[in-house]
Each structure stands twice: as structure tokens, then as C-alpha cells.
């Protein structure tokens, strides 16, 4: 029992990332009808927002401290971040330590801007072109974004730790009445899951309860009629694109402490996220979220020792296998609507 709960928990954080990326993909697809292969790159850009902020906060100057000696006996060089100088060691130090959560504030404007520029500058011209062209041009864009990041940060993963206060683990075992230590779960993964839940809830609430969201939903159902009613639906869809970019970016920001970001992390996630979207049903937001968590949990179950003994290698292919089965038995995915992408 405790092993099962542990696997479910393990699957949640990966599932959260899948769900967040798939949600953004579906938002873009549902509103603009564009298959965005650059969405993984947006996730990666978000992660590098955190890396950039971390580096910015750590920008320091060197002084020679005569009181300290390095291992050769010379006076040691001490690096003092400017931020510590300006705000004092207490607050400045805390800011550096909490750079990943702070990066959320930094990433929101950046990602919104990236999203707006991308939509107005490129995607706009591809609405009337075939889906294959959209896939190809966004695929090209993803390569370009990746290579730019690689140019700046190199090819190696850059560790970006979570704040010290959040690096420990939480003992679920005690909480649920099992032996202590049987279900240990890092705080940060818990936070990631909660964060994802809040983001997903936020997007759904925004679409459900605001006038803006209502118009967007109406536009998703019938773009032409909404346009005839005198509403500038294009502008709203552009904003939705920016929101989707923002969701992907924030998912990336929060993911940095779990896995050190590197330039191709976006592509790795994108391939899986597309599978997730297709399994959930193209154009269905709840489907994308449900499929994201479902596949995340399934993946972690498949990597249990017991399962691996029976079916070796299943953890590598489970997601694709499920995708193939679902696509063949339920052609529209779990919750797909009729008439989406079926030409």
C-alpha cells in the first residue's frame, strides 16, 4: 500500500509538468488552431528565466580580504554580490536564496512579451496555412530558441537549487499511519504539484468566471459568430497565446530545482506533452490535464521494481504504448470533441 502511494506521489510532479505544458498547448490549439511545436522551447525559456535571475542576483564584485587567507597563504579574494551590498547580508542573501520563487515574478512579464512577439510576429501569418506548415515553422523556431539559449548558457545543465528552507523532505508515512520513512517526499515536489494545481485552477477559473474568458470560450466554439457580434476576437486570442506561453514558462521556472535546466529540456518534454495532448483529446482542456496526470502516474508505476520484473523496459515505453492504444480505440482521445483536426 505504501509503495503504491509513493508511486502515485512520484508520478504527480512529472504529471504536473506534463499537464501544465499540455494545458498551454491545448489553449493555443483550441483558440488559434495552431499546432505549436515551440511550446517546449517556451518551457525551457521559463527555466532559463530562473537561471538568468539567479545569475543576475549573484552578480558580484571581487575584493581582497586581508584577514582571510586562501590555501596558498595569500590574501583571499572575496566575492560580494552587489545585492548583498545594497540590501544588507540578511535581505540580500535571502533574495539570492529565494531566486527560484522570485523568478516567477521575473518570468511573467518576460514570457508574456515572448508570447506576444511570437504570435504577432510569426504565428499570425500561419493561420491560413496547413497544419503541417505550422508544425514545421514552430519546429524551426524551437531549434532557433534552443540554439540561442545554448549560445548564451552552453550545453551543460545549470544547477539552480531551491531555497534551503524547502529542500528537505516530508514524511508522508507518519501522516498516513505507516512506518516513518516509508513514504518520503521532497518538499519542492509537493510545492510543484500545488503550484501546478493552482495554475490549472487559475486558468480554468479565468475561462469560466470572467467575461474575457467567456468571450474566449465562445470564440473557441465559433470564432466567426463572435467576430460578427463586433468583438475583436483576434486580440483576445493573442492574449490567450501570451497566457499559454506564461503557463509554460512558469512550469519551467518551478521545474528548475527538480532537474537542472539544459537547452534541450523543452524538446524532451514537448514530445511527451504532445502525446499527452493527443491522449487527452485535441482541443479539450480538462482532457489535457487529466491525461497529463494519468500518464505521469502511469510512468512512475511502470518504473516500480515489481512491474519491471514482469515486463522489463516497460517504464521506457509505457506512455507511447498507452498513446497508441488510446488513439486506436478512442480516436479522439479521452475527452476530444468531434470535428477537431479530423480533415
Amino acid at each position, binding site marked *: 500500500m505504501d509503495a503504491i502511494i509513493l508511486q502515485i506521489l512520484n508520478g504527480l510532479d512529472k504529471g504536473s509538468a506534463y499537464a501544465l505544458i499540455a494545458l498551454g498547448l491545448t489553449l493555443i490549439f483550441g483558440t488559434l488552431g495552431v499546432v505549436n511545436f515551440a511550446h517546449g522551447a517556451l518551457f525551457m525559456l521559463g527555466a532559463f528565466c530562473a537561471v538568468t535571475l539567479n545569475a543576475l542576483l549573484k552578480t558580484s564584485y571581487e575584493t581582497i580580504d586581508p584577514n582571510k587567507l586562501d590555501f596558498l597563504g595569500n590574501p583571499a579574494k572575496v566575492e560580494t554580490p552587489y545585492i548583498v551590498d545594497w540590501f544588507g547580508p540578511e535581505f540580500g542573501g535571502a533574495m539570492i536564496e529565494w531566486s527560484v520563487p522570485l523568478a516567477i515574478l521575473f518570468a511573467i512579464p518576460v514570457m508574456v512579451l515572448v508570447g506576444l512577439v511570437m504570435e504577432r510576429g510569426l504565428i499570425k501569418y500561419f493561420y491560413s496555412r496547413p497544419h503541417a506548415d505550422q508544425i514545421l515553422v514552430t519546429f524551426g523556431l524551437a531549434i532557433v530558441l*534552443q540554439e540561442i539559449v545554448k549560445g548564451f548558457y552552453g550545453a551543460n545543465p545549470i544547477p539552480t537549487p531551491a531555497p534551503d528552507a524547502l529542500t528537505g523532505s516530508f514524511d508522508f508515512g507518519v501522516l498516513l499511519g505507516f512506518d516513518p520513512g516509508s513514504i518520503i517526499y521532497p518538499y519542492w515536489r509537493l510545492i510543484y504539484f500545488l503550484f501546478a494545481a493552482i495554475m490549472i485552477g487559475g486558468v480554468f477559473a479565468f475561462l469560466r468566471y470572467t467575461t474575457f474568458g467567456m468571450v474566449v470560450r465562445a470564440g473557441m466554439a465559433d470564432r466567426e459568430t463572435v467576430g460578427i457580434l463586433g468583438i475583436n476576437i483576434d486580440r483576445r486570442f493573442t492574449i490567450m497565446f501570451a497566457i499559454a506561453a506564461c503557463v509554460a514558462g512558469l512550469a519551467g521556472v518551478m521545474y528548475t530545482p527538480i532537474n537542472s535546466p539544459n537547452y534541450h529540456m523543452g524538446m524532451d518534454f514537448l514530445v511527451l506533452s504532445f502525446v499527452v495532448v493527443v491522449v487527452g483529446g485535441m482541443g479539450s482542456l480538462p482532457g489535457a490535464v487529466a491525461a497529463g496526470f494519468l500518464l505521469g502516474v502511469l510512468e512512475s508505476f511502470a518504473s516500480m521494481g515489481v512491474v519491471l520484473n514482469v515486463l522489463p523496459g516497460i517504464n521506457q515505453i509505457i506512455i507511447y504504448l498507452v498513446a497508441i492504444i488510446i488513439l486506436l480505440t478512442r480516436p479522439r482521445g479521452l475527452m476530444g470533441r468531434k470535428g477537431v483536426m479530423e480533415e
Partner: protein
Amino acid sequence: MLGLDNRDMKLFIWVVCITVLAPFILNPFPAESELAQFNAGYPDLMQRFMIFGIFAIGFNILFGLTGYLSFGHAAFLGVGSYAGVWMLKLVSMNVIPAIIISVIVAGLFSLVVGYISLRRSGIYFSILTLAFAQMSFALAYSVLTPITNGETGLQLALDDPRILDSASSTGSIPPTNFFGIEMRDGFELALGPWEFVFNFGYYLCAVVMLVSFYLSMRIFRSPFGMMLRAIKTNQQRLRYTGKNPRPYNLAAFVISGMYAGLAGGLMVAMDPLAGAERMQWTASGEVVLMTILGGAGTLLGPMVGAGVIKYFENIFSKINDALLYEWFSAMPEGLQDVFVFLIHPFIGKGWHLTLGIMFMLVVIFLPGGVVEGGQRLAALFRRRRQSRETDGPAAVKDATPAE
């Protein structure tokens, strides 16, 4: 001739000439000159031009004609190369059985994958093929290690049975051969400062490539090819006329899978090892890039694309800052730094960036790829010459229908 009309025959003869004379064409710079590093005429790279040309030609039969965008074609290439290496290990170091078995195995595998994937179209098809390719990749890495040798990749060993070959007496692994002629054999020709390498492996690849190209030409011009185009244009209407598009689709998929297997087989014939990374989706992405860059749906496009990308990968990526400084040495110091700084991200290790930008520009402005660009330029040139010859009214009349 050969069942081709005049224009196609001309194109085919051109391609034959270029491939036969490639060792000359690709080595335009004297061996000792500074520009020698732009010479692409060494056997390894020339073989790759041909092999990836075949791969892209095959992909084009599927994507260019039917419009089905497969993101998993590298799996067939990978399966083909594994089959080829096993043939070399078990039967003979002669490359012919290896190549044949690669084509057959890849064909069978693509039949299975295609039968399942082609139930869906559009993005679903792309995802299904991607899923199959990623699955093959993951399995080759983990569970199928006895067959694929996992991360190390499948290699030849000295104690392989090779039942058709006589026992090796030299104590080393015998090289791959074509009825006795070794793949790495060749001769060098020095003409003054120029050096040209003629490699047997390259010419084998070239012959296979020409045959594949000829076949793809025949497919493009056949009623079957017409049917595939009809699928791309309007599948619904095709169904209304009482034709079932599925078998045609599947045939195109299997043919292109066999082309991929052929490329895989040639790859191991030239260099007998096979690794799982050949099946990864980035490899599938590469063939998509090649086909689109050169021009999907055109005869020559995929080969041009394959050539451009492989040239970039091998030659362009070698340019470094020192060389740039040399080129700009005529400029004043400051300006030189500025230029090198501006160009630096796009060269050397950054060649992917250049490739990505080029690819985007092609998709945005030239959906027909480089080949369409060339045709447009040629048309422009022709029109200009015409207007100069007839000056005036005729040229205007000629220009109007094009508007």
C-alpha cells in the same frame, strides 16, 4: 528513354553526371590552399550525401506526395542498420545480402507501423509515428540489448560466424566488400595542386542512389503517384469516387520505409556499426528538415536538402573565430572585432542556429524549398532576357498571366 519523358531524362542525366563527377565538383579548391577546408570531396562525406539523399527521397515519397508528415522515419533507418549489421555478422561481409535484408526488415516493420498509424491522419498520424519511433529507440536501448547491444551499439567482432566467408587469416575483422572489392578501396588522383579521391564505397552508394532516384521519378510520374497526390489534395473526394485511399497510403508508407531501410543498410555497409541514437526523434526531425529545406514534393529537392544539411554539419561547423579574423584581416581592427562578434554565434558549433533560421525562412517564404527558389530565379532571369530580346509589348503580354 527508360520510360521517362524528355525533361525528366534531361534531369536524370544531369543527376548522373553530377554524382559521377562529384569527387571533382566537391573538391574545387587545391589541397594546400586556405579554402581546402571547404572541400567536401572526401569519401566519408560523399557517402553520407548519397545515403541521406536516399533517405530523404524516400521520405519525400510519403510526405511530398501524400502530405502525411511522419515524425518517426528514423526508426526504419535504425531497424535497417541493425538488420544489416546482423547480416554482416552472421552471413558474410559482402554488403549485398546486408543491404537486401535491411530493406526487407525495414519494409516489414514499416508495414506494421504504417498499418496502425495510417488509421489516423494529420497531427494524430505524426504523433503515432513519433510514438512508435520513440518506443523502438527506448527498447533498443534497454530490453533489446541482446539484439542491439544497447548503448554501445552493435559492432562486428572477430569471432562472428560469417558462414559464407572463409575464415579470416589476418587476425583482424575483415572489411566490408562487394564481391571482393573492399568498400574503402579507391584511388587518388593528383592534378597539379588538386587532389581527388575516388572511393569504391562512394560509387556503390551513388549507383544505389541513382537507382532510387530513378524509381522515385517513375513513382512520381505513374498513375500510382497521381493517386498519392490526390490523397494530399482531397481525400474526401477520392473516397466519393469509390476509391479507398488506405492501400495507396500504406504502399507509399512502406515504400518510403524501405528507402529508409536501404539508407540504413548502406550506412552499415560503409561503416559496420549501428546505434540506437539513429532512431531517436531528432534523427527523424533531421530528414524532415532535409526534405522541406530542399523542397517537398519536388524530385530533386530532398537530395539538395540532404546535401545542404550534411555540408553544413561537416564543413560549415568547422569555421572558427581564428579563420574569421583571417578573412576580415583587410579591415581595420575595431571593425574586424565587430564583424567577428556578429558572425560568431552562427558558425562553428552554432551551425544549428543558422540551419534553424534558414529552415524557418524557407517554410515562411519558400514553401517549395530551395528548388522552388531556384526555379523562381530561373523564371525571373528568363523573363528578363526575353524582355530584353523583344523589348516592349511582348514582354508585357508575357508578364500578365503570371500576376
